[in-house]
């Protein structure tokens, strides 16, 4: 198992500080979801935890060692990242894509070992992509394409997987399909999953651990049942709502107030 933590992490672009002296412990073997308003730095934090963004100060620690000091290939064997809406080269097949997850294990002369082949086949099987392996990625539906990308990160054979908004731009059906897949990976293979999600209700249902970011730091973290309340939504998203219990799984469910249909009701009352 690999532990992932940050110490006094300061992140930003140019003069601007986005995350300030942040300490966070990612629970091993669980699903952690970062939530927060637009621009709160949740994607920035995720990227820095995957060593894609250099911190201004402080460090990301993987298994007791500063990630910046580890060789990038070593990190890639322990931690995989799927960025938000990645680009697909024209005509690339699913198999060719998933193979590239084996990059950290290969070298000049060792380009396609038995382990590589097994890991790729396993990744395709788990994501139900085996039948599509000869199809080009750009010909797939949104959900299949996302599964292909996830298969690539699985081929990397890491204990930790980070995903930046894996459900954005997907239909509702595919959103659920992808989250179910990730939940399964966590349950069956004990993978530590860290992701950024926009939808608080989906986050509440799929996360074991929610981390809410606000004003350059953590506003609250913990089990969704303990954390997500009216006050929480008011503070983090600046929105009034009712929080109910999901009738299926008992997780919190946020129902925004907004103005919504108030106008029709008012008209009826006055008319």
């Amino acid at each position, binding site marked *: 198992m690999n532990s992932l933590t940050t110490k006094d992490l300061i992140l930003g672009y140019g003069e601007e500080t986005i995350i300030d002296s942040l300490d966070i412990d990612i629970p091993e073997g669980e699903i952690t979801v970062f939530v927060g308003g637009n621009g709160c730095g949740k994607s920035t934090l995720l990227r820095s935890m995957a060593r894609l963004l250099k911190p201004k100060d402080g460090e990301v620690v993987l298994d007791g060692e500063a990630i910046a000091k580890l060789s990038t290939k*070593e990190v890639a064997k322990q931690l*995989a990242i*799927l960025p938000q809406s990645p*680009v697909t080269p024209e*005509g*690339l097949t699913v198999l060719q894509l998933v193979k590239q997850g084996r990059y950290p294990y290969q070298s000049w002369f060792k380009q*396609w070992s038995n382990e590589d082949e097994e890991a790729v086949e396993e990744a395709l099987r788990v994501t139900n992509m085996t039948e599509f392996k000869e199809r080009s990625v750009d010909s797939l539906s949104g959900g299949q394409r996302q599964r292909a990308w996830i298969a690539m990160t699985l081929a990397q054979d890491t204990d930790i997987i980070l995903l930046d908004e894996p459900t954005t731009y997907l239909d509702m059906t595919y959103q659920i399909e992808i989250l179910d897949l990730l939940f399964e990976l966590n349950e069956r293979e004990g993978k530590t999953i860290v992701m950024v999600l926009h939808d608080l209700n989906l986050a509440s249902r799929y996360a074991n651990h929610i981390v809410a970011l606000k004003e350059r730091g953590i506003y609250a973290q913990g089990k969704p049942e303990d954390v997500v309340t009216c006050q929480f939504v008011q503070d983090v998203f600046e929105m009034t709502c009712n929080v109910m219990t999901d009738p299926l799984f008992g997780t919190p469910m946020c129902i925004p107030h907004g103005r919504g249909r108030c106008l029709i009701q008012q008209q009826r009352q006055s008319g």
Partner: protein
Amino acid sequence: MRKYISFRTSRFSFFLDKKGLGYFSLFFLVALIIAYLSVSLGEYIVYPSDVFQVIMGNGEKMHSFIITTLRLPRLLVALFVGIGLATSGAILQGMIRNPLASPDIIGITGGGSFAVVMFLTLFSDKSDSLSVSIHWQPVAAFLGAMIIGLLVYILAYQGGVSPIRIILIGIGLSSLTQALTTLGMILGPIYRASQANIWLTGSVYGANWDHVNIIAPVTLVLVIIALLIARRINVQELGDDLAAGVGSHLQRDRLLFLIISTALAGVAVSFAGGVGFVGLMAPHIARRLVGSSYGALIPISALIGGILVMGADLIGRTVFLPLEVPAGVFTASIGAPYFIYLLFRSKRS
């Protein structure tokens, strides 16, 4: 049926795509046919049986002379020029993630042109003869190409280089070298200007075995290196974040790609001048046939590039006899419409 073959020993393991292998065999055959036609056709036609005799080493003296001294080295130079330009273009397109990238567009060819014009102008004396040996001309061209490659990198550098900066700086430098080339030709002696003009169009006229002995090994070694690092190009095509995520050394590899592609184009340009559009067209055609995986894309592009330049030279040398038209005229006359077609297609998609 499996679409690929795996080769494995305890130390080595490789992956071969059957489709790539199929196209490779096909284009290899096409290249052989063009090679045969090139040694056979010309002002004097050497018939098949005589060609065969020469290959077996007991041809007539004149046939041997025509083939081994005149036509074969020229053919081989054309082949390696095509291979070099195409491979260079393929690498650049992957590194910049843009199918319109090529050594012409980021100024590498232009650097060679400028250097040649400067060479011809600076080393001409009053009687219009060169004060140094013409053998230095390829060296000048190669240096010019390398300097522009280096400049692109240095000017694009900003704590690392990004594809978009490389392409923009490259286009800028390319325009600059073109302007300077024109200026050099106007200011220089008129005789040199026409000599430079042939060079700018690109031609393998006058190629000999000395040229082959340099261009063949250098190009082959660079292409083999490119093949061995094909994975690194593949992974960069997925975008910076994913590439870094799977453990790629983005910046180090980018510098390596730029060095290899500049050297490949530089060597090609130094022996054949500015043969245009091959570096753009060949990898693009190859990509449509075998997809984006560089393990297959590099060898197929290379072969198509070789075929294009050999074919262009064959046509230029034979169709308009007794006139000889530089190969670059033909690559440009297929290449320019192809480029417009590409722009049109990318606009619509």
